[in-house]
């Protein structure tokens, strides 16, 4: 069913731990992101930013509230772990800190692996995607032979292999200098708009927020009123 809203979180709450150690990384969070929208999430460490990504990415199940991704209620999908995993594989892309590439695979194989896992076409060619992020000439290089920025670009290309409708980006500039940070986030914003992919980027880096369509702030598990 076509929808312009790619991600919808309504009154989502998640508690972790027991007794005195109980924390609430998500406290009655509501957020809506449309396709092609690039949203930045800022906030101090431990505010719940990564937990927001985990819940939106179907890696964690909230205690209450509704999470809807591309028209699918994740709580209903979660009744079958197989279906949930397949949905995550085909509809949600992840970009991790430092790219989090597999050390044994060269840049092209990083993409081929995701295509294989998702049972994509056997004729899959990683070169157009690597070209789109500007690292086609490094296709045969292993992660250790790439710079931090190049690793992150490969990570971005990898996230787009399955043509996801929702992209979750976790601290993409954590290991990059100022110039490379700008380049990587600009690339993310460009790809997000070009591919019409709803994107949430969690970051500490306020310098890159200019590339975002919207910025929300998380403090103690709550989205700030101004941001929401």
């Amino acid at each position, binding site marked *: 069913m076509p929808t312009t809203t790619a991600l919808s979180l309504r009154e989502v709450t998640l508690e972790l731990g027991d007794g005195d150690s109980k924390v609430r990384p998500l406290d009655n969070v509501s957020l809506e992101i449309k396709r092609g929208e690039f949203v930045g999430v800022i906030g101090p460490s431990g505010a719940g930013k990564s937990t927001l990504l985990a819940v939106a990415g179907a890696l964690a199940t909230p205690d209450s509230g509704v999470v809807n991704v591309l028209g699918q209620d994740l709580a209903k999908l979660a009744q079958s772990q197989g279906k949930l995993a397949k949905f995550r594989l085909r509809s949600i892309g992840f970009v*991790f800190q430092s790219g989090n590439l597999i050390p044994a695979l060269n840049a092209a194989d990083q993409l081929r692996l995701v295509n294989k896992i998702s049972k994509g076409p056997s004729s899959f060619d990683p070169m157009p995607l690597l070209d789109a992020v500007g690292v086609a000439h490094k296709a045969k290089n292993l992660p250790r032979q790439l710079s931090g920025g190049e690793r992150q670009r490969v990570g971005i290309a990898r996230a787009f292999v399955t043509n996801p409708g929702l992209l979750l980006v976790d601290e993409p500039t954590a290991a990059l200098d100022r110039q490379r940070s700008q380049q990587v986030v600009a690339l993310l914003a460009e790809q997000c708009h070009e591919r019409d992919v709803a994107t949430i980027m969690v970051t500490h880096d306020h310098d890159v927020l200019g590339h975002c369509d919207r910025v929300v702030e998380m403090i103690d598990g709550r989205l700030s009123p101004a941001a929401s």
Partner: protein
Amino acid sequence: MFLALRELKFARGRFGLMGAVVSLIAVLMVMLSGLSSGLVNDGVSGLKSLPVTAFAFDEGTKTDNAFSRSVVDSEQVETWQSQVGITHAEPVGAGMTNATTEDGTQIDLSLFGIQPDSFLVPDVSEGETLEGLAGIVVSKTAKNDGLDVGTVITLDRIDTELEVVGFTEGQATFGHVDMAYLHLDTWRLIASGAAQAGIPTQEQVDALDFNVASVIAVQAEDGFDFSTADLAAATETVSLQESFNSSPGYEAETLTLSMIQVFLYAICALVVGAFFTVWTIQRQHELAVLRALGASGRYLLRDSLTQASILLVAFTSIGVGIGIALGTAMPDGMPFALEVTPILTSSILTIALGLVGAAVAILRITRIDPLTALGGQR
């Protein structure tokens, strides 16, 4: 297999070291298997080649060295021969002896006295079949001691002379000593102490009142009830396979080697398991990323088991190859035999138990939380 092969190539140093250990275990397995087969052949190849279903020992004979302890008389033999369902029942005289060849070479022989017209007469690869009171058919391996057709040997202390008339088709040893088939009457002369210097004669045999043998070799129809016959003949029957334990040292040797092999299998499983435990822990974050990207636990398990299988099969094959090469270079005097079935069995067990060890280690993949791939959760 996509990831498995690339990781094997990427971490070839680590996998190479592990593989070298697996290969060494496989080499040891082949050597032990060869020694085991060699010792079995050396111990009981003579018995194995007999067309016998079972051996009947005198009642109450202690199992160890039963062939030389047991004494059966002609009445017991006749009782066995009269049983319905028995195809053949023939007396056999067994015993060890020392002898000297014409050129002064000292040899040991395991004497097996049989009737020259019995079903136990061995086929010969060279010379003539068993004939005459002085003729002996010896194991083919006795050629290594310089024996040839026509060689006359003199038994130590009694100076009885016997002549080699033929050689068996293959190795025929008992208790690590070459077997010599001879006329039962000649065996009786020797066993009774009535044998005299020179060639045994019919007059000596005729004068002897010693109608005993060591055991009764039995060939029976399928389903024959040995217990009834044992009761009637006052004997204890053991199958051909069980009779191997009556060969001197057989049980101790095979048990020792089997125990070493069992320990090696256990070591293989433990070493491979330990390696894959460390390997999986090292890849924990990488596996969490793959889970977060959508790879199922089953996919990652299959991939890792494929990796372990490739490692085990490849390096076990290399080890077996090295083991076989070393085995062919073993000196003639060493009881060593390369046989396909035991080598194949030990190879399969090495791979299978290594895989069990790897599987136990790899199972932790299913417990990896994809959430740990996210920075804040690390």
